């Protein structure tokens, strides 16, 4: 039967009606011709035709697709029922939509970050070549994936085995502006084979080739991304051949990559790609091209067809000793060299690219996926309960239909169609909701400094996931009530309405569902509280410095004075200018901005002995502690007397004093910082003691820090100056004053501003994400469980009206009835909470790594969650209990 006919069956029916009508006319004419009277002629024609409706029905049936027609009927009937019960429909659809929407949103992000293959040719053959176990490499690490050094890359490139191609890449940032406020572009360093091995074709112009990436390249071309081309050049097709300024150097744009290509790092796009050989042009004397301890590149390769990562790994391991032997840094001491020589290269599958996001967000996303899954389970239990209640209410209707000949299958099909309708509507709204939610999530994860670029197009996989969820949900909450409703013998069901009390087991499944809901929602509420309290602990934890009213100012100087003394004078002058800006309370330079994620640590020698504890190190200018609000506990701050010619001095924190110097008052003690072999190891005298403060991030516990005087180490001064500026009043508006002051000093200075508090907030992104989402889900779960309990209790009260009436007629007073109902609720609640407590303490262990300042089994949290849930649930069951107590015995008994 053709679908065309099915959808036009009404039209066909009308055609047939007209045809039969025309038959009657013809037959009547014939009868008239035979001499019949007009009335008789018509009647005879009708008799001859028989029942026209029957004919039409038969043809109509031929036009329809049987099951589809009944499904259509069932859906229409279900739709009518839902419309007639809007409260039920709203609760059902909303809880489903929220459950499915949340799941899809989180899965969408998970898919984009974790599962999807790179949009390049044959991603399955891509492998990343890196050191398998790289625990203690030393040196400088720059970029987002500092896996290898350039000397290592050059050796690996020279020995290609089992590869169709190899390439190296690294990340960087380029300033597009010619001085003034910096305009940052995401940079990509690529080796010559990068685009060719990935199989990327240019959208415009040409891409970087091995010919471009030759040592000492003088005027290499730059390739820009499609997004950058659109953003910066408005998609101008004549962009090829134009010049672009990167960190003050001009490069010619040679081509544009196609849209959708973002490099090999999921979560980050790139704006401009330069060949690796161009690195010395930007870095000048600080080039890392030949530094054996500068880690800034990552290497990927395309396996030759038939190659496997395991075999390639074995081959790489075999050639590793030679490669590392040739590239060991002369700056390494004995231990470092030993570690370095023990490294082995391996090949690791990289079809889905690499990602920093992945490492940071994989377990939170998995956890959130699990939480969202639980919310969906609770929503389903709620729906199952609602459906059960409805099915019970419709038992008589179903019994009547069974009695007059409906088949069991037909009725189950109809009840299923209703659930399908609910699931369909829920999934549709959920899919819409998911788009909004995942966009919101991505913008939540995006910070000013790091544009998270995740391709969130709803893929087939996500759609399949939603559809699967909807179907599963539909089966889950549709089938159980449907089976129950039809397993009752019609006769019994017809009589049941007159029965005094309901059979106990009738409530069994529903009680189970309520208990399960309470238990699961307790798990989620506990989880939410753990994350929210962790975040609160982090926000309020003693950090050892002020968070508000401080601006982090990063200056990039246009040129570097050759003489160290001149650099010092220049930076001091800029600092003084900053201090003189109106509204600035104080300003101090720091090599490392606290909790920015960067760090510098070294081994300390006390009395000539290298200590086991490694200390954090920072170099700061005078006034740093005052600016940061870190109390000076003893001794003095750095000052003008600390110069290159005066004895080296240091200020240490309490942890340094106790752990490395072994005493609370370290003033006057001396220590050395272990240097590379052959370098002098100056002796530092401790002149001050400061309160402990956080160094790398807020989650760490206080560790030793040695603060050195920036003025005594001018060789460390480079192009960059990081200044902490403390505002006298609000920091709003201070930025433009600072920009003006710096432009006056030197228009070539590039400047970036960020409130310190903002930087801290961004460093807590993961924690905020977990707290916000799990809080939302916990609330949702608690709400759903409360609705479930309320529904269960009201239903029970309604069913037992007569019984309650009799009890009251026999002398039970209202408080006794309330107590009876509340007791029922209390039993369900306490079983659920007990079960939930066990589940929660098991589940919380999965979150241990994401907590701060409290353990997964934190008793306070558990008590708070139990009390909160019990309170709300008691309220939810008190309302039906009150209604039960309001039963008028005479009325209740007279019913039926």
């Amino acid at each position: 039967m053709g679908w065309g006919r099915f959808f036009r069956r009404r039209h066909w029916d009308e055609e047939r009606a007209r045809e039969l009508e025309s038959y009657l006319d013809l037959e009547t004419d014939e009868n008239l011709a035979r001499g019949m009277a007009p009335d008789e002629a018509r009647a005879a024609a009708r008799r001859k035709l028989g029942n026209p409706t029957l004919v039409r029905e038969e043809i109509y049936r031929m036009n329809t697709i049987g099951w589809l027609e009944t499904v259509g009927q069932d859906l229409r009937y279900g739709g009518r029922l839902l419309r007639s019960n809007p409260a039920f429909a709203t609760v059902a659809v909303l809880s489903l939509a929220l459950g499915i929407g949340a799941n899809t949103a989180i899965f969408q992000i998970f898919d984009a970050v974790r599962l999807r293959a790179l949009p390049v040719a044959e991603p399955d053959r891509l492998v990343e070549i890196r050191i398998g176990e790289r625990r203690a490499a030393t040196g400088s690490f720059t970029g987002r994936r500092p896996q290898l050094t350039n000397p290592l890359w050059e050796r690996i490139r020279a020995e290609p085995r089992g590869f169709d191609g190899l390439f190296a890449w690294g990340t960087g940032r380029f300033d597009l502006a010619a001085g003034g406020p910096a305009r940052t572009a995401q940079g990509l360093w690529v080796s010559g084979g990068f685009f060719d091995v990935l199989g990327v074709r240019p959208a415009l112009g040409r891409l970087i080739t091995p010919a471009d990436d030759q040592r000492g390249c003088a005027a290499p071309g730059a390739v820009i991304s499609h997004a950058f081309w659109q953003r910066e050049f408005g998609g101008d097709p004549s962009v090829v051949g134009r010049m672009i300024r990167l960190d003050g150097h001009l490069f010619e744009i040679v081509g544009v990559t196609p849209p959708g290509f973002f490099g090999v790092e999921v979560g980050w796009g790139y704006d401009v790609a330069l060949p690796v050989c161009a690195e010395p042009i930007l870095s000048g004397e600080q080039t890392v091209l030949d530094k054996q301890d500068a880690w800034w590149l990552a290497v990927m390769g395309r396996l030759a067809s038939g190659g496997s990562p395991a075999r390639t790994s074995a081959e790489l391991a075999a050639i590793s000793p030679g490669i590392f032997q040739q590239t060991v840094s002369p700056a390494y001491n004995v231990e470092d060299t030993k570690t370095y020589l023990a490294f082995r290269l391996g090949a690791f599958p990289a079809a889905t690219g690499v990602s920093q996001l992945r490492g940071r967000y994989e377990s939170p996303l998995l956890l959130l996926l699990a939480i969202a899954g639980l919310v969906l389970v609770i929503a389903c239990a709620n729906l199952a309960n609602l459906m059960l209640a409805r099915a019970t209410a419709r038992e008589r209707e179903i019994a009547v239909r069974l009695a007059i000949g409906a088949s069991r299958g037909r009725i189950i099909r109809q009840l299923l169609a209703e659930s399908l309708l609910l699931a369909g509507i829920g999934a549709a709204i959920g899919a819409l909701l998911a788009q909004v939610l995942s966009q919101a999530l991505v913008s939540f994860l995006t910070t000013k400094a790091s544009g998270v670029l995740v391709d969130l197009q709803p893929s087939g996989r996500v759609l399949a996931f939603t559809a699967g969820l909807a179907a599963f949900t539909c089966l889950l909450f549709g089938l159980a009530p449907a089976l129950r409703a039809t397993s009752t013998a019609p006769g019994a069901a017809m009589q049941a309405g007159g029965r005094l009390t309901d059979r106990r087991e009738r409530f069994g499944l529903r009680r189970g569902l309520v208990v399960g809901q309470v238990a699961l929602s307790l798990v989620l509420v506990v989880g939410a509280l753990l994350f929210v309290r962790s975040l609160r602990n982090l926000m309020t934890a003693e950090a050892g410095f002020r968070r508000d009213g401080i601006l982090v100012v990063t200056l990039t100087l246009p040129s570097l004075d050759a003489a160290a003394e001149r650099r010092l004078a220049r930076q001091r002058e800029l600092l003084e200018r900053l201090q003189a800006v109106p509204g600035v309370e104080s300003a101090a330079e720091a090599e490392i901005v606290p909790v920015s994620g960067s760090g510098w640590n070294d081994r300390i020698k006390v009395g000539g002995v290298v200590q086991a504890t490694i200390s954090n190190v920072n170099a700061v200018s005078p006034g740093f502690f005052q600016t940061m609000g870190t109390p000076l506990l003893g001794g003095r701050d750095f000052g003008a007397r600390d110069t290159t010619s005066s004895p080296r001095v240091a200020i240490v924190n309490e942890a340094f004093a106790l752990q490395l110097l072994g005493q609370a008052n370290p003033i006057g003690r001396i220590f050395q910082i272990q240097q590379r072999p052959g370098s002098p190891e100056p002796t530092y005298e401790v002149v001050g003691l400061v309160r402990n403060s956080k160094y790398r991030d807020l989650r760490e516990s206080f560790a030793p820090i040695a603060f050195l005087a920036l003025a005594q180490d001018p060789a460390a001064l480079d192009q960059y100056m990081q200044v902490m500026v403390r505002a006298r009043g609000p920091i709003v508006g201070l930025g433009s004053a600072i920009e003006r002051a710096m432009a006056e000093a030197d228009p070539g200075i590039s400047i970036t501003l960020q409130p310190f508090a903002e930087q801290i907030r961004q460093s807590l992104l993961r924690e905020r994400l977990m707290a916000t989402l799990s809080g939302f889900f916990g609330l949702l779960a608690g709400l759903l469980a409360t609705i479930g309990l309320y529904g269960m209790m009201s239903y029970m009260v309604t069913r037992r009206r007569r019984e309650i009436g009799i009890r009251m007629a026999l002398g039970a007073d209202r408080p006794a009835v309330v107590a009876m109902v509340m007791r029922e609720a209390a039993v369900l609640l306490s079983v659920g909470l007990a079960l939930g407590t066990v589940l929660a303490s098991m589940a919380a262990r999965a979150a241990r790594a994401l907590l701060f300042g409290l353990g997964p089994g934190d008793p306070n949290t558990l008590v708070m969650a139990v009390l909160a849930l019990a309170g709300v649930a008691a309220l939810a069951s008190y309302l039906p209990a009150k209604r039960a107590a309001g039963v008028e015995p005479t009325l209740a008994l007279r019913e039926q």
Partner: protein
Amino acid sequence: MPKRGTPPLQEDMLQGTLDLLVLKTLSVGPAHGHAIAHLIERRSEEVLQVEHGSLYPALHRLEDRGWIASFWGTSENNRRARYYRLTPGGRKKLVEQTSRWREIVSAMERVLEPAPE
């Protein structure tokens, strides 16, 4: 409406054959439902009575299979009527069905003939 001594064949006996009869009737030229019934009855000398209750579903089925096509026309006495005509596919089907029918008839004949001793 049986009028003769020979009782008309039962409708269910005609199940498969009604299609063949309709196709054959239409092979002469287009006709409307009323005329098709009349033609079949006349040519079978009233032995085959066409139930209208089954004629129209049969026409619908044949049209659905693409063996006949329909259009609205005007009957000989100026009534609007739905006409059916044979399609090329229907013509092929008619040839097939006819030979199949002949096979069945001769097979029946052979069975029904008195067995030679």
